[in-house]
């Protein structure tokens, strides 16, 4: 039996890992969990089926005029970005509250990894959904837009807008999930926020013409990016012509993840219990 005297049996201590290292480990594991488990590919399957349906409908319309073809490109692009963003929110909203419900959060919080690193790692996994979705959408963009010369514009504009949106929605999802008691609540709240952001875009055309309507459209990140893509593809504007419409989405892409990181520093086993 080993000697249990105090002197000489004192413990050795190791240094806690850095935030970057921890974030990398969490990101790698989350990516494995998302893609190797099949969950990510299941979402991508639904996504590609949707894009295939849209593309086939466009192809079957032999009378499509020039503008409608551009509108088809715009629609496909908007669907790709919107659905990609939706999937990002789904994963981000499950990030913490899902672990809480499954009972796996405690083991994670017992490690010396900084809380913010855990949030960063989970955010990376959520954003990966958008990147894969965008890559899968490229053949569709090419096919629909090849006759109207919009492929290059669609790719660049779609990637910029989609990435800004993905970052913003990841921030929203992570913020909500960090404070939600249950996973159901987190998902429901995230959907409500998403719908609330989308609502101004559904305003009647007359309501958007006044200064108030225009202001709401510009302040709402969802409406801003939809309008930007529409003008880029349908109205053949240049990439920088309506850059002012991307100010709010860009701000959201920075502020919301930053808020999520701040909140992540106070991540606890049960929200509002303190750690």
């Amino acid at each position, binding site marked *: 039996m080993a000697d249990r005297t105090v002197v000489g049996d004192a413990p050795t201590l190791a240094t806690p890992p850095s935030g970057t290292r921890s974030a990398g480990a969490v990101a790698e594991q989350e990516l494995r969990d998302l893609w190797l488990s099949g969950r990510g590919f299941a979402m991508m*399957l639904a996504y590609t089926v949707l894009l295939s349906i849209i593309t086939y409908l466009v192809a*079957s319309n032999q009378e499509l005029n*020039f503008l409608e*073809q551009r509108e088809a490109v715009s629609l496909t692009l908007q669907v790709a970005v919107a659905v990609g963003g939706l999937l990002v929110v789904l994963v981000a909203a499950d990030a913490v509250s899902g672990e809480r419900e499954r009972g796996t959060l405690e083991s994670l919080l017992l490690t010396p990894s900084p809380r913010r690193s855990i949030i960063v790692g989970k955010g990376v996994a959520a954003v990966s959904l958008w990147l894969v979705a965008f890559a899968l959408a490229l*053949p569709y963009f090419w096919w629909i837009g090849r006759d*109207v010369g919009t492929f290059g514009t669609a790719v660049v504009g779609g990637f910029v807008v989609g990435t800004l949106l993905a970052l913003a929605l990841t921030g929203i999802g992570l913020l909500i999930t960090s404070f939600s008691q249950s996973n159901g609540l987190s998902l429901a709240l995230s959907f409500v926020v998403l719908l609330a952001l989308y609502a101004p875009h559904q305003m009647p055309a007359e309501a958007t013409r006044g200064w108030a309507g225009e202001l709401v459209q510009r302040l709402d990140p969802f409406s801003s990016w939809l309008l930007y893509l529409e003008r880029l593809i349908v109205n053949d504007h240049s990439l920088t012509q309506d850059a002012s419409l991307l100010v709010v989405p860009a701000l959201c892409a920075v502020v919301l993840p930053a808020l999520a990181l701040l909140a992540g520093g106070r991540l606890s086993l049960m929200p509002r219990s303190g750690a």
Partner: protein
Amino acid sequence: MRALARIGVAGALLLALLTAQDAQAAESAVVAGGVVVALDQHDVAATPGAKITFASTIRNTGDRPLDGYVAHLNILSTDKSVYVDPEDWSPKRTQYLDELAPGGSTTLSWNVRAVTSGPILLFVSVTSPTARTVTSSGPLNMTVGGQRVVNAGGVLPLVLWMPAGVLALLGATSVRRRRLR
């Protein structure tokens, strides 16, 4: 006294009525006889997607200034089988004129993009704030040719193989999970 007052009121009313009629008549005369709208082009050929720019000159031929007048671009097809949504052709089809002095003129520029093939008619209308009469320009005849048909070739492989490829990846993860059990 009462009779005098009644006569006075009746006289005032008659005067107001005559003045209003006079004003309307004067205005009608100005509108009808004082505005001329002319386009700088009469015929143009285009292909779907082409952008066309033309100008309209609006001249005040009357002896009173024109204020608050509005110019509007009209787009239609004379072929009822051709659908034209003016919003698609030109999003900005209304322009508000500055005050036009008697004898003065102003030139407005209009941008149009050809959306669909067929015979298209464009003209500019000008009206006063009260819109009692409208003056229009002559027609700009646009012939848009070259029907664009979507090239459907290669769509089936795309719409089938993309989801199939993702399904294959999904299947691979399922096989992996089964092997690990």
